[in-house]
């Protein structure tokens, strides 16, 4: 399986050069045509588990997200793709309660800004961050056990599930997290998030910096998580990876949604094809 992201360099170069006219044009073009494909009710037919409406986030005077609309229905797998600096991680952090925002972000129908990250974790919104944020001087098992700190779940059963999903972790239960390889740490971060028995799992760049052979393991793990009915919001630069797994894709560039649709639709999209899939 080729997990490379051939179009990313070309797109980043164009963006760095200040040529954002293409992005603006494509945004206008797409938002007018594919809006229905970006809604959970349209795709899954149920009440959205996560409903982001006109969401904006700024870092001082710099806008990181501008009027983003996004819904994720129960059991869905939605991927947010885009280059570095597009706002993917900001969106993840906003959804999981770590960022102030304007507009609306509703989880289970309740506004996220009214709740602490702890409350959200307790309600099943679990975030696996790009930086992993593991407890480096704790063992694999302690990291996993703490993942269930707020969950009303049987810890032993969850551990068995995670070890079954990532057998490499089962062989390293006593190893300190900081001494593991990048791929193993990523498995541990996902495993820790799963210990929280999530209704909505927010995965931020799980493939970042990983070797292809490790990506296969992560990919298989995500397929099993999906098969277990966990709703997933994935933020990912690796478009090939996202297209393989997601039910719906949202393309974010410079804080704006510029494309949305099913993987099949986006594979046929010339802009996506040229910019992200290597022509």
């Amino acid at each position, binding site marked *: 399986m080729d997990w490379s992201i051939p179009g990313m360099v070309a797109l980043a170069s164009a963006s760095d050069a200040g040529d954002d006219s293409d992005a603006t044009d494509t945004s206008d073009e797409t938002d007018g045509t594919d809006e229905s494909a970006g809604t959970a009710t349209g795709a899954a037919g149920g009440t959205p588990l996560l409903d982001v409406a006109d969401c904006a986030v700024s870092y001082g005077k710099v806008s990181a997200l501008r009027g983003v609309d996004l819904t994720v229905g129960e059991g869905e797998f939605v991927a947010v793709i885009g280059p570095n600096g597009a706002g993917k991680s900001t969106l993840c952090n906003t959804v999981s309660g770590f960022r102030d925002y304007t507009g609306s972000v509703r989880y289970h129908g309740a506004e996220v800004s009214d709740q602490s990250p702890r409350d959200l974790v307790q309600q099943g919104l679990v975030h696996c961050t790009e930086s992993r944020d593991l407890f480096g001087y704790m063992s694999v098992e302690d990291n996993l056990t703490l993942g269930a700190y*707020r969950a009303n779940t049987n810890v032993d059963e969850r551990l068995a599930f995670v070890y079954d999903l990532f057998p490499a972790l089962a062989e390293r239960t006593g190893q300190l997290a900081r001494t593991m390889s990048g791929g193993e740490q990523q498995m541990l971060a996902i495993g820790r998030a799963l210990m929280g028995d999530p209704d909505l799992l927010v995965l931020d760049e799980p493939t970042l910096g990983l070797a292809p052979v490790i990506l296969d393991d992560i990919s298989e793990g995500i397929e099993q998580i999906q098969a277990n009915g966990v709703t997933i919001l994935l933020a990912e630069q690796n478009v090939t990876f996202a297209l393989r797994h997601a039910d719906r894709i949202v393309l974010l560039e410079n804080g704006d949604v510029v494309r949305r649709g099913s993987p099949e639709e986006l594979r046929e999209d010339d802009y996506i094809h040229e910019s992200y899939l290597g022509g």
Partner: protein
Amino acid sequence: MVDPTVSLQAAPSTVLVQILILSSLYALVALGFTLIFGVGGVLNLAHGANITIGAFVAYVVGVQQGLGGFAGLAAAFVVTGILSGVYYLGLIKRIQDEPIMVMIITLVTAVAVEEAIRFVYGSQPKVLGLLSGRINLAGSTVTYTQLFAFALSALLIGALFVFVNYSRHGKALMATSMSHKGAALVGIEADRINLVVWVAAGALAGVAGVFLATRQGASWAMGRTPLVLSFSIVVLGGIGSIRGSVLGAFVVGTLEVLTVQYVDSSLTGLTPLLVLVVVLLLRPEGLFGRELVEA
């Protein structure tokens, strides 16, 4: 702070007993400091003030009110714990993301506490006792108060060690010390953990203050040396490491006793400072070095 009764010709067993007694007290002194720095990521320069307050609470309750040394000890444990928690909630919590501000505020607090105590109780040290009598231990004469201080220090340190390593909430505390973001991701509330840490650190410092006062009397400036000791011990052991702090306390305690034994008793105050400089130069991460909080 070495017992002056240890003579230059003391037997090895006598030296060993003194090392155990002094080091366990130093570990108790340093633990609160390392807990707050390790978990909250802030330097509490008012740690010595907590020690002083503990000693004077015990003096007021035990001596002035005539309720006895143990009532004073219990009062010191409770009052310093509560005061430390209130101090965190009322002041530190608002500025804990600004380490320099915390250093300034806690330094100002330390000076204010010292001046207030000097104003109320004067400059003369107050005598504080817990138990009377002595026992011969491995050829060394030890007071019952010293023995009790050693036993209670060991018990408190052991209880803390078991709590952080084997209990769910203790592991949450250690997790918070390693990554605030990681802790938040699993639903641990860092502010609540910080409150627990400040209360525990205050209570431990209060008890340490009582034990120090039984050796040298309770005085308005008695918290200064323990603060420097805490720095040395925590840097030596590895900032944020409880195990390292205990080991660091034993290294400093041993060096101090050996300095008295084989060099010159007037140099004891220099030992922790020397250790601090040498460790910072040779092994700045400490013996059990651990990453600072990844806030």
